[in-house]
Each structure stands twice: as structure tokens, then as C-alpha cells.
């Protein structure tokens, strides 16, 4: 898959209008695993499951492998029962599985062998996404480019690629050490520095490495997620700690750091918890995974329907392997996702996709500023603002500002109501963005003064 000029910020959109942004369709479909085509006219479930309450250690390891093995069996059984036309499985490594690369590789092999059978025996197009844990922040300030954690993370990617992963992804954390603090203080300048200066630098370093591992093993470099930034903001907002407009601003701005994976050669599908996915899709034309209402097993959100409006994979994020009345929770969620996907695909095959998409969008965007910035119209506005700028720093500020303009327009048109305190914050964030210096050089010194104790400049090549 060709990328645009390697390592350079995107300057054009792959999809130019909201009408072109549709679930199940992209200009650059991706083939992966055992015959799975993404973005070529259908939406497939992406199932992710995790362990119930238990410790991961030598003594429990064989029972853990057994759990994944049984889940592999379940996947085949359920796929047949529900006439599933295609499936992505995500194996999100837990920290000890990354710290011991051979453990992550062993489970990758187990799951791959089940998917192989599902394809060869049952004819199921399917693929396995593997997501090692970004363990580089085990020490604070994190050492991102050197040291045992980085070496081990790299080894984990290698081992999983060798063991049969079809797509590799990560929820990387470069810049989060500063962003967490800045968000708590409502410091817009700090957030822009974390998302627009530090995070893109780490993404460049990390994704060059991931792409080279993928290329060497014939694996698809999927994409990253701004989970540690924008989903933390979403959770803070849902707990009443941050204004929703702040979380919506962070969501828009976070797309720029996630885009860097594509600048370095990733080509999708993006990670499910990357709710910035639609912006990535509009700019790169690559397929995206999304999650919403059917991921309420993992966390709550105000964007349950609108998140589905442009997805190519539809995920449950993560569910514990516990027993429900119907059966194992992962099986219940695979059934749920399958029915969700039948609706997407029936809408596509009957030519009703535009109506269905509108329903998904309209049902959420008048109730939440965070939902509003995820609509196809907002996506194109934010994506356009990003590609108009030439540096990651400028792009991040442009995305943040456009997210706020989208909200302000909706308030003006009376299609979104904001609480008075949210209004105050809208003004406050806008003024802070306007006051930022034109180039990143202008905030470097003050940021090092304010947050220098939290991050190591050399981790970012500074």
C-alpha cells in the first residue's frame, strides 16, 4: 500500500466530503490474515476478550493458555452458528505477556491455529490483530527509546509477528506522562505540547520500528490509538472532572499523533479504541476499527451510536472471560457484534446505508459535544483543518480549534445545548488556543520549565 511522502505530515484528504465517508467502504481496502478484506463493502466484528480476575504467573500460565484455546474453539463454533461472513480477533496482551515475549507469542500461535482451521475447514475469512502493551512507562519519567522496557517491547512485537499475528497495533503512551497532568489542570498549552510536540515524535520513532518489523514478517501494520490521551479525557469528563468540550477538543487534537503511524507506513485497520478513527479514515483512506455501544462491557461512553457511522470493523473493546446466563461473555459479545454487523451490511446491500448512518449520527450528536465531533460532517471539517497545516504542532492546534468551532456552530444553530459551565470552558479553551505561539519553538522553554520533571527530552529526540 503506497503511503504519501514518507514521514511527512499529510496534506490532502483521501475522502473529501461527508457523503464519501461510509461504514464498510474505503478507497484503500486492506487484505489481511486468512482472506479477510477490510473496507471493501462490508463491516465485520472485531472481538477482543481478556482474562477474569487472576494473576498471570508461572503457576497459572497453562490455565491461561487453556482459556485462550477454549476461546479459539468458541470462535469457530459461534462463527458457524451465526453464519459469520468474516471476523477479526484481537489479542491485546496483558503486561506480563509483553514482558515475557515468549508468552505473548504462545497465545498468538494458539489463536492463529484456530483461525487457520476456521478458514481452511469452515471457509471463514478471518485475521488476528495482536496488540502488545506499551510497557515503556513502567518507570517515570518513561524511557522511550532505550533501556530494558523498550528492548522487551520490540522483542514482543518480533515474537508475535513470527508467531502468526496478521495485524500489529499498539496503544502507545509517548507524551501521556505530561498530558495526564496538563489535563488535570485544564492546561490547554500543556495538552497541545503533549499531543502536538512530544507524542508525534514518539510515534515517529515507534512506528518506523513497528513498520520495519511488519515488513520483515509480512504482517500488516495496523495503527495506534490515542486511548491514553482522549479516552482518559472521555472518562474524566464522564466522572464530572473535566468539561465535555475539553474532552471533545482533546479527541480532535489527538488524531494528529495517531496519523503519524500512517505517515510512517501503517495502513490500517486502526485500533478500536481510537475514536479518532474517522479523521484517520478521511485523511488516509484506510479502514478503521471502532467501538461504541457494544463495548459498554469495557467502559461507558456518550458516543455509542455515532462511533459506528464510519467503521469498517466493529469491536467490543474487551470483555472478561466470565460465564453469563447465555454462555461465556466473549461468545455473548461475538453474537452482539455479529447482529450489529448484519445491520450495517443489510443497509449496504439494500442501498439504505445513508439512512442508517444518519440514524446512528442523529441519535447521539444532539446530546453530547463529544458525539458531535465524531459525525461525518465534523470529521471532514477537522480532517480538512489538519491537512491545511504543515507541522504536527500546527495540525494539532488546528484540529483542536476546529473541534471547538464545530461545537460553537451547533450551539449557535441550537442543535446542541451546553450547560453554562461548558460555555465558560469553550471560551477559555478558545482563548488559550489563540494565544499559543505559531511554532513549537515558542513553547518549548516554558513547557520544559513547567513539566520538565515529568518527561525526559532525549526520549523524544530533543
Amino acid at each position, binding site marked *: 500500500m503506497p503511503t504519501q511522502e514518507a514521514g511527512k505530515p499529510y496534506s490532502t484528504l483521501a475522502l473529501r466530503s461527508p457523503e464519501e465517508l461510509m461504514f464498510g467502504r474505503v478507497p484503500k481496502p486492506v487484505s489481511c490474515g486468512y482472506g479477510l478484506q477490510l473496507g471493501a463493502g462490508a463491516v465485520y466484528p472485531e472481538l477482543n476478550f*481478556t*482474562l*477474569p*480476575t*487472576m*494473576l*498471570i504467573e508461572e503457576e497459572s500460565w497453562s490455565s491461561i493458555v487453556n482459556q485462550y484455546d477454549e476461546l479459539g474453539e468458541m470462535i469457530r463454533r459461534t462463527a458457524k452458528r451465526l453464519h459469520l461472513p468474516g471476523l477479526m480477533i484481537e489479542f491485546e496482551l*496483558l*503486561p*506480563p505477556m509483553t514482558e515475557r515475549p515468549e508468552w505473548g507469542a504462545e497465545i498468538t500461535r494458539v489463536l492463529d491455529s484456530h483461525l487457520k482451521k476456521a478458514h481452511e475447514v469452515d471457509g471463514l475469512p478471518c485475521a488476528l490483530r495482536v496488540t502488545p502493551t506499551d*510497557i515503556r*512507562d*513502567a518507570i*517515570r519519567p518513561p524511557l522511550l527509546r532505550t533501556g530494558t522496557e523498550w528492548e522487551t517491547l520490540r522483542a514482543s512485537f518480533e515474537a508475535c509477528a513470527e508467531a502468526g499475528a496478521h495485524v500489529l497495533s499498539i496503544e502507545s503512551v509517548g507524551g501521556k506522562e505530561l498530558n*495526564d497532568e496538563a489535563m*488535570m*489542570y*485544564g*492546561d490547554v498549552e500543556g495538552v497541545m505540547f503533549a499531543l502536538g510536540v512530544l507524542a508525534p515524535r514518539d510515534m515517529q520513532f515507534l512506528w518506523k520500528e513497528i513498520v520495519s518489523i511488519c515488513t520483515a514478517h509480512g504482517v500488516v501494520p495496523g495503527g495506534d490509538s490515542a486511548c491514553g490521551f482522549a479516552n*482518559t479525557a472521555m472518562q*474524566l469528563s464522564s*466522572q*464530572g*472532572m*473535566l*468539561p465535555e468540550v475539553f474532552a471533545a477538543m482533546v479527541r480532535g487534537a489527538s488524531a494528529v499523533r495517531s496519523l503519524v503511524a500512517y505517515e510512517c507506513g501503517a495502513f490500517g485497520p486502526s485500533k478500536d479504541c481510537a475514536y479518532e478513527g474517522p479523521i484517520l479514515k478521511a485523511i488516509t483512506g484506510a479502514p478503521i476499527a471502532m467501538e461504541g455501544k457494544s463495548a459498554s462491557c469495557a*467502559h461507558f461512553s456518550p458516543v455509542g451510536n455515532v462511533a459506528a457511522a464510519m467503521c469498517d470493523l466493529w469491536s467490543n473493546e474487551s470483555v*472478561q472471560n466470565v460465564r453469563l446466563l447465555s454462555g461465556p461473555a466473549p461468545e455473548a459479545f461475538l453474537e452482539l457484534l455479529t447482529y450489529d454487523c448484519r445491520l450495517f451490511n443489510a443497509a449496504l446491500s439494500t442501498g439504505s446505508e445513508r439512512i442508517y448512518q444518519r440514524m446512528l449520527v442523529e441519535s447521539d450528536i444532539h446530546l453530547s459535544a463529544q458525539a458531535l465531533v465524531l459525525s461525518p460532517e465534523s470529521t471532514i471539517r477537522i480532517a480538512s483543518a489538519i491537512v491545511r497545516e504543515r507541522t504536527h504542532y500546527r495540525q494539532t492546534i488546528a484540529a483542536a480549534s476546529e473541534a471547538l468551532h464545530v461545537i460553537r456552530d451547533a450551539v449557535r444553530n441550537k442543535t446542541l445545548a451546553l450547560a453554562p*459551565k461548558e460555555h465558560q*470552558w469553550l471560551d477559555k479553551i478558545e482563548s488559550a488556543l489563540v494565544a499559543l505561539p505559531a511554532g513549537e519553538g515558542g513553547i518549548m522553554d516554558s513547557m520544559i520549565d513547567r513539566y520538565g520533571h515529568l518527561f525526559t527530552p532525549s526520549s523524544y529526540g530533543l
Partner: protein
Amino acid sequence: MKELQELAEQLINGYSDHVARLTQELLDKGATPQTILNEGLVAGMTVVGERMRSGEMYLPEVLQSASAMHASLKILKPHLVRDGVESRGKILMGTVKGDMHDIGKNLVGIMLEGAGYEIVDLGLNVQAQKFVEAIQTHKPAILGLSAMLTTTMLHMKTTIDAITQAGVRANVKILVGGAPVSQKFADEVGADAYARDAVKAVDKVKELLAA
């Protein structure tokens, strides 16, 4: 006293400079440091806590109030030490071994600090032994443990067991929290209390210290 009320109000508004000035003025007028602490600062922070609970204040505003309180405490501290006034209680906190989620734990620490408690934060990915040693060194009234993963929450039990084995369990009350944690789990691992969120954590600490 009118000035104490004004101090509380300026603290709620998060004006550090005003709060520092008013603290000095009150001291100069002969108010005791303990009165300033309880009737000015703690009274103000109680309102801040209530406003946060009711959604009237967001975290950044709460943190501004907390900074204002620190500005005042900086002036008061030598006087409090001289008068032998003890802090409301020392709380040791940390995210358990293997877990790198810390923003929730940090928020709990901030809210407790705002309520006048002294916080010693051991950070994240903290081994059981380190908690034991910190209890022996810092002698906290309460230990707060946070965990966000189903595969790390059992380290709360490992930690509590290590504390028991070291013979210091009777010295601290233990509060636990984090997304996968519940009251039932807290009971099972032998904790003294569970709190769902940062605001509830303050209530629980008050209850534990009063018990």
C-alpha cells in the same frame, strides 16, 4: 470571623495570592493557626468537595483551590509545627504491582489532599514489599491501593498478606479502589473499605479515621 469567611471564599475561587495575603493578615491579627486551618482552609475545601460532587466545579478548578490551600499552608506550617498541631492524618497511596494506570489514583490523592490529609504517593507498579517498608517508615493512618486490571487486582491481596506477615496490619486501615474492584472484592482480600471514586474515597477515609 469575617476574615475567615473571606479566606474560605478566596480559596474556593482559587486565588492563591489573596489566600496567602489573608493568611498572613489573620496571623498578624492573632488568629490561631489551627483556627485558620479548620475554619478557613478546611471549611473552604469542604465546599469545593461538595461543588465537585454536584458537578458545579471541575477538577482544574478544584486544583486551583488546592494550590491556594498550599499557598496558605506554606505560611501556616511553621506555626502549626510550633503549636504541635498534627495533620488530619497521613495517607500512603500507590497502584499495585504490574499496573501502570495511575490517573485514578492520582485523583484520589488530590481529593484527599484537598480535604486536608497528608499524602505520601509511592507511584505505580509498586511491589508489596515496598508498601510494607513505606508503612514502617511513614507510619500512615491509612493505606490506599489502586488497581485497574483484572490481572493485577489480586496484588491487593498479595500486598495485604505481606503487610499482615510483616506484623504491621494493625497499624493501618486499608482502602481499595479501581475500575474492576468492588466492595465484595475488598471484603475478600481483607481490606477495610472500598471507594468507587475519588469523592467517595474522601468519605471513606473520614469514616475510617473516625472509627
